[in-house]
């Protein structure tokens, strides 16, 4: 039987606020354990939460960017469960009335555009971190620095139909929150985390099959691999006439499989109820309008525009818009050289290649769009050849000197002077009678030999077009 895959994703994004969601403690990572704590985020008796306005602003931004309805009235609720990293014995989250609902995100898989629905976005606090040390790991420590770090949870509709779509959806969502400046999008470090609900159903059926929930996938690649594995696993069970057990499964990246964590029966009853310590959150229209104005062009739209406006391929545009800074770098470079295709090539191949080699990101790049734009202009004007330009690029990358300056200092200007080149060519023809003979006998491949000799004689500075023309003229004479 043919099966249809049904996937819904739940994403937790850590928000880049200065302070925590319900107290004034710093939201910075990597501090000494329990350094950034206070009575509120360690759950001292009598302490009370006060909502950080910035968190609400960021959640609204996420909602507006994903076409959600912003609820003017939303409610914080307590999710009750016991765990040592949860100092109050409950997590403050949103349940029945989240801040954002009914949104959507566009994705593009193999050139086909598709919308994935967003069920809801809600705000909540993160828990602390446990570590187990000592012989037999019998000492446990808890660090509350992360407790109270603001999160938004973004829940998709079960609209995703393949692991590729899931990866594409995640990429769009990640790029969006990074563009908005509300999350750093780092999956490896856990500031952008994803759980997946997945089920299969006979193709054409409109009823959902039994789903499993997958956790512990800390990269795009792992999400895709875990989903692929789970599809295979569920398919095998169904094809043997078995039934899928509703359960939570953990992705084991080392073994490349998913493993059962807990069954539906073992699932917690979180006993959600409205948090009496926090009043209903009321948001007025003028604030929403104000936030709307701060939303930049988003990656999906930017990618579409790049393809249209600059006539570059989807793959190229995809790479360029993956970072807002990179996209801006590209557009600024085009302004300097007016050649989008060359700008794309130089940025993607040389610039990103060099940065990659050093393990740096575009944010750390010291070279400016002006550098690359002018380099391209020098090629277009014929001042230097493309080959020489690579040398100039290396120099420019190391020293940050302007390309003209490097060309001038190193005497790299291209030789286009026909008189000078003719002299050199005449000399080469005279000294290579055997090759000239071969050429005359129709072995035109030997032409490359002559070009090489000219380049050698001019240290690569000869203008290739002029050389080609002159050589042809003189050899064919």
């Amino acid at each position, binding site marked *: 039987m043919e099966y249809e895959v049904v996937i819904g994703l739940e994403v937790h994004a850590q928000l880049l606020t200065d302070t925590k969601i319900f107290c004034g403690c710093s939201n910075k990572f990597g501090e000494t354990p329990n350094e950034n704590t206070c*009575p509120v985020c360690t759950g001292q*008796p*009598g302490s*009370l939460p006060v909502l950080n306005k910035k968190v609400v602003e960021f959640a609204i931004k996420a909602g507006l960017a994903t076409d959600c309805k912003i609820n003017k009235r939303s409610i914080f609720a307590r999710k*009750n469960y016991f765990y040592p990293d949860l100092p*109050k014995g409950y997590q403050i989250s949103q349940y029945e009335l989240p801040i954002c609902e009914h949104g959507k995100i566009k994705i593009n898989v193999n050139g086909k555009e598709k919308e994935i629905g967003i069920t809801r976005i809600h705000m909540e606090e993160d828990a602390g971190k446990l570590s187990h040390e000592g012989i037999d790991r019998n000492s446990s420590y808890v660090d509350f620095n992360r407790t109270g770090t603001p999160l938004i949870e973004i829940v998709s509709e079960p609209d995703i139909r393949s692991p590729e779509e899931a990866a594409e959806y995640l990429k769009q969502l990640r790029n969006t929150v990074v563009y908005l400046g509300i999350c750093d999008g780092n999956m490896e470090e856990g500031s952008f985390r994803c759980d997946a609900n997945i089920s299969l159903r006979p193709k054409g059926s409109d009823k959902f099959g039994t789903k499993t929930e997958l956790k512990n996938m800390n990269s795009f690649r792992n999400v895709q691999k875990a989903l692929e594995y789970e599809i295979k696993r569920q398919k095998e069970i169904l094809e043997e006439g078995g039934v899928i057990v509703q359960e939570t499964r953990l992705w084991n990246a080392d073994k490349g499989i998913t493993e059962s964590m807990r069954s539906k029966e073992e699932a917690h009853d979180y006993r959600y109820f409205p948090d009496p310590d*926090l*009043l209903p959150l009321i948001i007025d229209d003028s604030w929403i309008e104000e936030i709307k104005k701060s939303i930049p062009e988003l990656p999906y739209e930017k990618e579409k525009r790049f393809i249209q406006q600059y006539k570059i391929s989807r793959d190229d545009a995809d790479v360029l818009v993956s970072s807002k800074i990179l996209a801006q770098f590209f557009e600024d470079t085009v302004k300097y050289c007016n050649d989008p295709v060359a700008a794309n090539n130089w940025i993607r191949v040389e610039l990103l290649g060099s940065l990659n080699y050093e393990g740096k990101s575009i944010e750390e790049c010291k070279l400016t769009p002006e550098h690359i734009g002018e380099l391209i202009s020098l090629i277009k004007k014929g001042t230097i050849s493309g080959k020489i330009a690579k040398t100039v690029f290396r120099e420019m990358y190391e020293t940050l000197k302007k390309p003209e300056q490097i060309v001038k200092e190193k005497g790299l200007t291209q030789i286009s002077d026909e008189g000078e080149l003719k002299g050199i060519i005449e000399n080469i023809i005279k000294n290579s009678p055997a090759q000239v003979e071969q050429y005359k006998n129709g072995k035109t491949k030997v032409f490359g030999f002559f070009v090489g000799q000219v380049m050698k004689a001019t240290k690569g500075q000869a203008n290739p077009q002029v050389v080609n023309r002159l050589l042809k003229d003189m050899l064919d004479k």
Partner: protein
Amino acid sequence: MLNIYEKGILELHNLLKKKEITSKEVTEIFLQRIDELNKDINAYITICADIAMSQAEEADKKIAKGDINPLTGIPLGIKDLITTKGIKTTCGSKMLYNYVPTYNATVYEKLLNKSIVTLGKNNMDEFAMGSSNETSYFGVVKNPNDLERVPGGSSGGSAAAVASNQCAASLGSDTGGSIRQPAAFCGVVGLKPTYGRVSRYGLVAFASSLDQIGPITKNVEDCAVLLEAISGYDPKDSTSINREVPNYFENIKKDCLKGLKVGVPKEYFIEGINPEVKSTVETTLKELEKNGSEIVEISLPHTEYAVAVYYIIAPAEASSNLARFDGVKYGFRASKFEDLLDMYKKTRAEGFGDEVKRRIMLGTYALSSGYYDAYYLKASKVRNLIKLDFVEAFKKVDVIVCPVTPTTAFKLGEKVDNPLEMYLNDIFTIPLNLAGNCGISLPVGRDSSNLPIGMQIIGNFFEEDKILNVAYNIEQLVN
């Protein structure tokens, strides 16, 4: 002339101001009084003599410089679920028998800024769950009027301390009557402010949507002074309300009985009220009528559901509020356990008393999946109807008057095995916590066993000034 320890806040203030006595002397007198009485009455869990003496010394320095307010150098008791930095705060529970807070409750900070003297932390029902002060891990508190009787609860230690002159006044907290009922049983004045009037920051939560801190004092004037000192918006408490604090003391003596519309809810004078309580309140009402007040029968139709609603909402919130007591971070942890789950189970089994466990179980059940709608959600809706009862009533009357409790103080052990009967004791106080409005408990007489009888004056939202004014006028009549 009264003994020094019999004096209230303002009387002591006058002596301090005239420099007829120092705060140090006053504090020594109270500490000695506590030393004599605490073994019998058990109104204090922690006595902080050293802190009290050094605070008194500081207060005296200020007074010498002429820097004095009505609370400067006044020795107070604080209910032991209000956090006091560096001073043990046990909530009357084994669970927090050794807990020393790292921060001050907003109300305590406000009082420290007024240069009060902290005598100690008052005994209470465990986590404020009880109406008799018999659930405290630190032993029962006895009623100073009759040592065989309960002082009421949960602020039993506070009320007993004030009634037996072991402090000039005290702070209590009220979730279903926990200030007003012990005040009535002990024969002192106790006020539950409007929800949001006083910051809850640093009040160890029992039921967050019902809890309010309030004063327990020897007279209405003191009550006004102490209420004013602790009231006001607190940015650390999202449920506190940003509304100006009136000068409660200033207008208290104004004549107000003439033309005053006094509502008497017919649902509150039901069968089962002790006849002496009923007749004493009725006598007071007649006095009011004689003084020009208009007695109006009103209806609060949803009263009969109040106790049921309360015993869903309060335990539900409590079950969540008390989840933090898990042995991980502070307080009691069971000494022997197998693993994490076992540590939770043993810590909570050994650390909490029966009444607390009973309410945690009730609340957990009420919030459970499949029962939430039938219990918590339904209760929340009825709660709103109870609130609307008061909103409607206050369109017709200025204040509402009724007994505080159906009976006077009962005997120790009398109701301890019958939780339902114990719960019904709060039948007249609970509706206010559900609705959110303010009420004051005022002693208006004594029964044939010479036990105090309290009358409750209920005010509209944020009309503490009005009930204090009415209470003062009645206090004058009764005396």
